[in-house]
């Protein structure tokens, strides 16, 4: 490594602008590549209490991407702290814990419990808000504002708010997350989708699922572009990052870093491959990654 690949996301400096997307990463990848090279470590979203998630089938290949309905199975925050996050402490990159709640109150309680455990929290706002008929928090500016505010009251940790790509008014949602004290936005989660098998039955046990991978990149890139003009906080691009070109596209649209999910399933070493490619790109051009980031977030 010769180039300076570091970027800052609010109060946190990442040694490289590449990190895993929540739900697609675990320490098991440590047997395949050096986890210490990543910008951050992001385990799967956890909830306050244990929950099962959806029955299988949980995944299908659609439209050149993936569709998943895992359903956030979770051991609950206590078990996660003792059995899972403790093992992340052996690694250098910041631990970004992704959290999800059924209610605003749950978001607040989870955050309070994780204060002092994580280096930052990823607030997964794409989960159903049980107080609003199951509509995802991130589809509505008010629900987003309330959930993020509850987290903000419970911690001084950086809050990275992960939004949904099918929000009708994404700029309003982005502004609500910022106004409530969000320190960064992750754009975006999966796109709600449906697939049937030859017999006409849903391919996923949960009926609908979230589309990820190449098909969602143009949509996530649009969200980054729109948010870049709506808020001042840093943005993390997420959706269909496979190649160096994808990373650079997100930088140009206004992101300071990217998260990689589906591409890691495709080729396990995608993230370190991207870091190498970025290093080579920066070295060849004689620039630092921070110079490639088109937008200077405050």
């Amino acid at each position: 490594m010769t180039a300076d690949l570091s970027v800052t996301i609010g109060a946190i400096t990442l040694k490289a602008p590449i990190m895993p997307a929540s739900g697609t990463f675990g320490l098991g990848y440590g047997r395949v590549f050096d986890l210490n090279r990543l910008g951050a470590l992001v385990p799967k979203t956890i909830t306050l209490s244990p929950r099962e998630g959806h029955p299988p089938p949980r995944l299908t290949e659609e439209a050149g991407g993936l569709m998943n309905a895992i359903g956030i199975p979770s051991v609950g925050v206590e078990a996660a702290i003792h059995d899972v996050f403790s093992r992340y402490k052996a690694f250098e990159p910041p631990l970004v814990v992704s959290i999800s709640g059924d209610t605003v109150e749950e978001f607040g309680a989870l955050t309070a419990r994780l204060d002092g455990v994580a280096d930052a929290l990823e607030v997964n706002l794409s989960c159903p808000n049980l107080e609003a008929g199951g509509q995802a928090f991130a589809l509505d500016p008010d629900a987003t504002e309330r959930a993020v505010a509850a987290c903000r009251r419970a911690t001084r940790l950086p809050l990275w708010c992960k939004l949904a790509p099918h929000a009708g008014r994404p700029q309003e949602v982005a502004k609500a997350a910022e106004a409530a004290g969000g320190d960064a936005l992750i754009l975006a989660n999966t796109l709600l989708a449906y697939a049937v098998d030859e017999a006409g039955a849903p391919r996923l046990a949960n009926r609908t699922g979230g589309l990820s991978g190449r098909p969602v990149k143009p949509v996530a890139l649009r969200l980054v572009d729109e948010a870049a003009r709506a808020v001042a906080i840093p943005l993390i691009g997420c959706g269909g990052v496979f190649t160096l070109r994808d990373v650079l596209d997100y930088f140009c649209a206004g992101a300071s870093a990217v998260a990689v999910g589906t591409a890691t399933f495709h080729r396990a070493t995608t993230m370190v491959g991207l870091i190498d490619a970025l290093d080579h790109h920066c070295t060849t051009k004689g620039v630092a990654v921070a110079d490639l980031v088109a937008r200077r977030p405050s």
Partner: protein
Amino acid sequence: MDHGTVFAGTVSVQTAAHADGLVLLELEAPPQFQTAKAGQFVMLASERADMPLLPRPFSILSVGTTLSLGFAVVGEGTRVLAKAQAGDDLYLMGPLGTVYAPDARPVLIVADASHFGTPLGLARALAGEATVVFVTRPSDQRPCPYDDAVTAAHQDAAALALFAETGASVETVALDGLKACLEGQAPGTVCAGASDPVMAVLQQVAEAKGWPGEVSLQAPMACAVGACEVCIRPTRDGRWLKVCEGPVVPLQTPRFQP
């Protein structure tokens, strides 16, 4: 952490042989595979533009100067992988997963063509010191959606030949004769890998007889390293297990659909 114990990258195909809907590949074996054991698996993908997004899991049949894999063509991924020729590069990730560890002899292996890889790996490792009960399918089944000329009888025969080559003594039986056939055996350990209906029968007999045993499971996979929770299968006590954290698990743990 022991990063680097699992290889992930491209390897070249040394030989590729096709017969009756089965494909046998000998691949360049990266150093990580020198200590790989029967039961373990790899994720494999073609670099062709028509390969689906996800690599597919396949059992390690044996490792010598080359890594030996074999698969049935059953869907889009295996259809594209079957185009591999000597000299092509394939994406390979592995070795992954747990191994068969039969600790009492004689070993009884229960297998079928839909799931021949892991038990074949064990049969090869035991170099003949095993009895294989091979469960055949109705001979007119068409297991390969892309090639109607391939019958279950063809594929069964091809898989059977691979077991026979290991030197094991092989008995064939149809599903409806399986119970009786098993009840005539007296294994020290049972090691199985077969479709659910076969496994349901075996599980019942083994439980009744008190035979210890292990089974290798299958499920669609994405990460193959325990991260995504895609590859889950139900257990008899109402939990879920991740197949990639197996695939070999105690015989009585999983719940099978009869």
